[in-house]
């Protein structure tokens, strides 16, 4: 593959605003967040005084064993769940605290693990959904800018297909396009590539990095996959097994734009080793805790 070849996704100018200089929106501050679930009276401490600041335009990846509260944290930011105590701020604006709940909003778009494109809408109808229900822009205008975006993301030919008719990799791309149409302050991605095969996954990594490099959106990305975490993230946050706390933050100082060659670099392998050690310890604890529960 030629060194000079650029296959970077070109985003429309409106989404490209953050490209020059430091992005100014999308700082997320998580302060002392605690979440206690009480199913059937038994209290389960899911998150225990988690604090984390994600800077505007940062690509932050959260890793940790299953049930460590990653998704709980994401749901709290998205406004799907309340929290027991602590505060979450988006650009110094209080999203939620122990006393205040937030409603989900188009400034924090979630891309779900199994994907959530509406099967009854075509690709184009899915992509324009946000602006249409928000009613801020005229339908014709939304449509043409969506077609533009789909074209620039290499999805032009499928705009009138239903999600069932396209491949899983394409569905993920459409979902990211649907999120980007709303010009969100932060993208919340909950293991978005988990169900994909390894090849599609690597294509999607490149794709997401292109979207990130050209839009400079703040990204909150949850995964189990350490290689993915280090390849994509600017910082990797390792969480402990339940109760979820922040165990370690790994700064990924690999320069951007990144491509697959990063995966064989010394720095990448070094960081991966560091992350594996941190996560492995937690995974073992989670496993033993599971054994105790079963015993």
């Amino acid at each position, binding site marked *: 593959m030629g060194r000079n070849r650029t296959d970077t996704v070109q985003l429309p100018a409106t989404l490209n605003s953050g490209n020059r200089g430091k992005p100014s929106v999308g700082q997320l501050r998580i302060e002392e967040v605690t979440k206690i679930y009480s199913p059937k009276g038994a209290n389960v401490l899911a998150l225990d005084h988690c604090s984390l600041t994600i800077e505007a335009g940062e690509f932050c990846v959260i890793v940790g064993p299953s049930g460590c509260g990653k998704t709980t944290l994401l749901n709290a930011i*998205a406004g799907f769940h309340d929290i027991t105590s602590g505060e979450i701020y988006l650009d110094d604006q209080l999203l939620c605290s122990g006393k205040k709940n937030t409603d989900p909003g*188009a400034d924090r778009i*979630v891309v779900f693990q199994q994907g*959530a494109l*509406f099967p009854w*809408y075509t690709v184009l109808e899915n992509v324009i959904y946000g602006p249409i*229900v928000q009613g801020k822009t005229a339908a014709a205008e939304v449509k043409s800018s969506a077609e533009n975006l789909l074209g620039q993301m290499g999805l032009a030919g499928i705009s009138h297909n239903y999600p069932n008719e396209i491949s899983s990799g394409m569905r993920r791309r459409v979902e990211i396009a*649907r999120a980007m149409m709303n010009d969100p302050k932060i993208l919340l991605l909950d293991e978005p590539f988990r169900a994909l095969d390894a090849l599609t996954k690597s294509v999607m990594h490149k794709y997401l990095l292109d979207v990130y490099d050209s839009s400079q959106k703040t990204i909150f990305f949850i995964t189990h996959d350490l290689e993915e975490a280090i390849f994509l993230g600017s910082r990797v946050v390792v969480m402990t097994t339940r109760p979820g706390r922040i165990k370690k933050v790994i700064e990924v100082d690999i320069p951007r734009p990144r491509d697959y060659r990063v995966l064989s670099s010394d720095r990448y392998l070094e960081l991966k080793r560091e992350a594996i050690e941190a996560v492995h310890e937690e995974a073992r604890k989670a496993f033993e805790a599971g054994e105790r529960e079963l015993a």
Partner: protein
Amino acid sequence: MSTQNPAPSSAGSWNTIPDAIFNKTAYRGIIAIVLAILFWETATRLSFPVIGKIPAPSSVIASMNNLVRDTYYWESWLVSFKRVFLGFIVAQIVGIPLGLLMGIRRYFRDLTFPIIEVMRPIPPLAWVPTAVIFWPTPEMSMTFVTFLGAFFTMVLNILGGVRNIDIRYVRAARSLGSSDRDIFWRIVLPATLPSLFTGMTVGMGITWEVVVAAEMIASRSGLGFLTWKSYVAGDFPAIVIGMISIGVAGYISSSLIRYAGSRLTPWLKVI
């Protein structure tokens, strides 16, 4: 021709008329029907046990020749269709909003679900005596009984459809800025359409069962009564014609619903 057009059967898209005629599925279906008729004819001629007592297809066809010239036969069709569709349509008008409301409002569901669950196991035919007493005309009681046949199926299918909507869709829609109204019209309703059409197809089948039985008990018209009358008169070929007519009528009704369903849920065909 566009492949977007819904196909009239599960055989897939038919692009041309020869495709439709020489379609494998249709071809096999026709062979099966012809073989079944041949077997039936042979069985009656050789007087097989049980099957041998049924009038032969040849005698049924001969008797059919007379019956189709009789306006009474076609009136029976019309009367039964009217009862079925009237009861069915009222069941949609009442059942669809009720099922949707039960699905989206927990308070309302808690209030209504127990009543529905107690009423549902009562077979519609058990309502015939009460219906005859309470409704002013026999026609109304007949329609009421057919209504019941489709009503509970509709309500429960729609309720199930709403309750089974994946929370991801609702969350994604909220995240994209939907109001409650948007959630209902753009998420809940389309997501429920497949179960709605399943309910309609099943409900239509029950409606025909109910109308035929009700006509035998409490009416002097319709395809059910025609079959019963033929039995009383000892006209065996006419019984068979009555039965086949009911089968064909049910098939036509279900096909109409399937067709409407495939038009309104185009995303389901493409897999």
